[in-house]
């Protein structure tokens, strides 16, 4: 029995992630993810169609406002609606993961106060459930690509997992940090929606990156600080054939998403033991 011996003692600040323990709790992770997905559209008429409806309607409205009225274009001959939709899909994944992960510890407070499990599971669940919505909404993207006769490049499809990984790592990294801040400071709840709204405009969702060519400082900052902007422009290059894939930008995004993830993980781990006391 000695192999299961463990010690409960006053906490040290930083505890390395216990991967073995995380693996042991994989069932809980799956069950919580499944719970969040299956509960989300319970007692709704449209059900899972909401996952398609939201980005689709946003796409139509934004196309009308930004493309027709404000004359923002995709920057080349790529049709604006499909250009916009790629950005919207990834942006919605990113912003909803940030929102859900940052609120996840509070919405699961009753669990945290009554049961032990690696707390990391909670924000990780939030990052996973967003992937399901993303996958469903991708159906529309495929439809649009067929409609406009766009063939994705093979390399574009091959780097998709890398793009998803960057999106997951960066949103989860920031989500973990916000989740643990949110437990202590409820200000996060008010600041975040505002922050996300602003952030959307400094992400190339509705406009192409090259529109920023006249503002090199902003462009550089955006690429470095906001990994999702690299993801969006690479996805447009890879899937829609808009320009060529810039591996330099992709590398920066990957590097920064790892930085965000490690920093978020560090902050989360160094505060998580007291969550139950202050939540």
């Amino acid at each position, binding site marked *: *029995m*000695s192999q*299961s*011996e*463990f*010690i*409960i*003692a*006053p*906490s040290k600040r930083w505890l390395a992630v216990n991967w073995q323990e995380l693996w042991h709790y994989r*069932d*809980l992770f*799956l*069950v*919580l993810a499944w*719970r969040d997905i*299956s*509960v989300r559209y*319970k*007692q709704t008429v449209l059900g899972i169609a909401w996952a398609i409806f939201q980005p689709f309607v946003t796409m139509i409205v934004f196309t009308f406002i930004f493309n027709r009225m404000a004359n923002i274009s995709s920057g080349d001959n790529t049709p604006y609606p499909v250009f916009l939709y790629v950005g919207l899909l990834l942006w919605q994944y990113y912003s909803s993961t940030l929102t859900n992960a940052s609120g996840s510890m509070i919405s699961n407070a*009753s*669990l*945290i*106060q*009554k*049961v*032990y*499990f690696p707390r990391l599971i909670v924000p990780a669940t939030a990052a996973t459930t967003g992937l399901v919505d993303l996958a469903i909404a991708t159906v529309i993207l495929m439809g649009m690509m067929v409609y406009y006769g766009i063939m994705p490049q093979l390399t574009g499809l091959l780097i998709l997992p890398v793009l998803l990984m960057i999106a997951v790592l960066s949103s989860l990294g920031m989500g973990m940090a916000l989740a643990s801040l949110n*437990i*202590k*400071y*409820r*200000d996060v709840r008010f600041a975040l929606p505002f922050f996300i709204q602003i952030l959307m405009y400094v992400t190339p969702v509705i406009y192409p990156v090259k529109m920023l060519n006249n503002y090199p400082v902003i462009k550089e900052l955006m690429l470095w600080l906001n990994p999702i902007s690299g993801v969006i422009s690479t996805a447009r290059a890879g899937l829609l054939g808009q320009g060529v894939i810039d591996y330099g930008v992709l590398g920066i995004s990957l590097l920064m998403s790892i930085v965000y993830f490690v920093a978020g993980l560090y902050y989360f781990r160094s505060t998580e*033991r*007291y969550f*139950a*006391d*202050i939540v």
Partner: protein
Amino acid sequence: MTKPIIEIENVGKCYRIGANKEPYLSLRDEIVKFTSRLRPGIKNRRPSETDFWALKDVSFNVREGEAIGIIGRNGAGKSTLLKILSQITPPTRGKITMRGRVASLLEVGTGFHPELTGRENIFLNGAILGMSRAEIRKKFCEIIAFAEIDKFLDTPVKRYSSGMYVRLAFAVAAHLEPEILVVDEVLAVGDAEFQKKCLGKMGDVAKTGRTVLFVSHNMQAIRLLCTRCVLLQDGNVAANGDPADVTSSYMGSDDNCTGEKSWPLATAPGDDTVRIMSLKTMNGEGDVCSDFSSDKDVFVEMLLDVRSIDAALRVGFELLWQDGTVVFTSHHNDAAASEWPALSIGINRLSCKIPPGLLNKGRYSVAPRISLHCTRWIVHTPSSIQFNVYVAHGNNEFWVVSTPQPGVIRPILSWIKV
């Protein structure tokens, strides 16, 4: 001899209770604190009286297969100790060594989601309690049989009656098979029959050689289930030993033997329907009293603040003997409806007469019980006041009536030759 399965060494837990009891800090507070730290001369250390040691210095060992009962008054540190043992919160000092897989049950139905069906919640709750999918699937039928909900398996639990909900929740928990089981007072739910079933299940767990730590206010359950009992008092271990000894010394401890207990409005037990303001034992002259002669009446008086009248409202109390046995339970509406005292909105004073010639020598305690009949408990607290009884009844000319005689009650019954 093998090492103990749990070693608790000098464990203490400190909570900081600030002068302003904000449940959480806002960023502004932190900035104010930070700037005040920059200016010298301003005291930035919080004074130590805001530190509250919920647990001070607790040490004891648990051997494999032992069933340990943990008792103590509210605020003695029982729940904090369980939270530390279940790794929900870290201790401030000290060390605990665990040698086995722990499952803790601090609440029944943790994580139950109202929108999910009974079946789905079994898997959800099982996973939360640390069971693997395979384990849950293996015990699925047993769980359903235990909970008696097979007809409603595919109904969302938000449509369950509260009884069904609790039965399902406990059924999942009861099928945990850890090496160490930590259980908080979760058995005080459901009807009497289900409680009995739960206690039986707990007993089975203890008998199969698994280690159980069990917090309860139910002294009888502690004495039935546990092999050892630990009494916590103000964050320290006050007694540790044979359950019968520890529970009776706890029940007999003096601090609530005043014959009167009243609660300030803010903490009065109860809810929006009714709150209990005070509880007294009185003699026939109307004086508060805690020592009674068994040939005199004992009046139990309750002061209630009734906010709304409900036909199902039952106000009463349990009378417990010194070892925790319930002697009887009495309610204001046990008798025919024409004899019930009418409750009205506002302050009500109810008095119950315990007739002379009934109680034996010993110490009794009164635990108030208020409920909406068969629906829910409003007040279900541990015993609140105690009184002593000296035997003086009977008119036997030959024996000294005060001779001790075993028994919880001592009625004088009629004997005839037939």
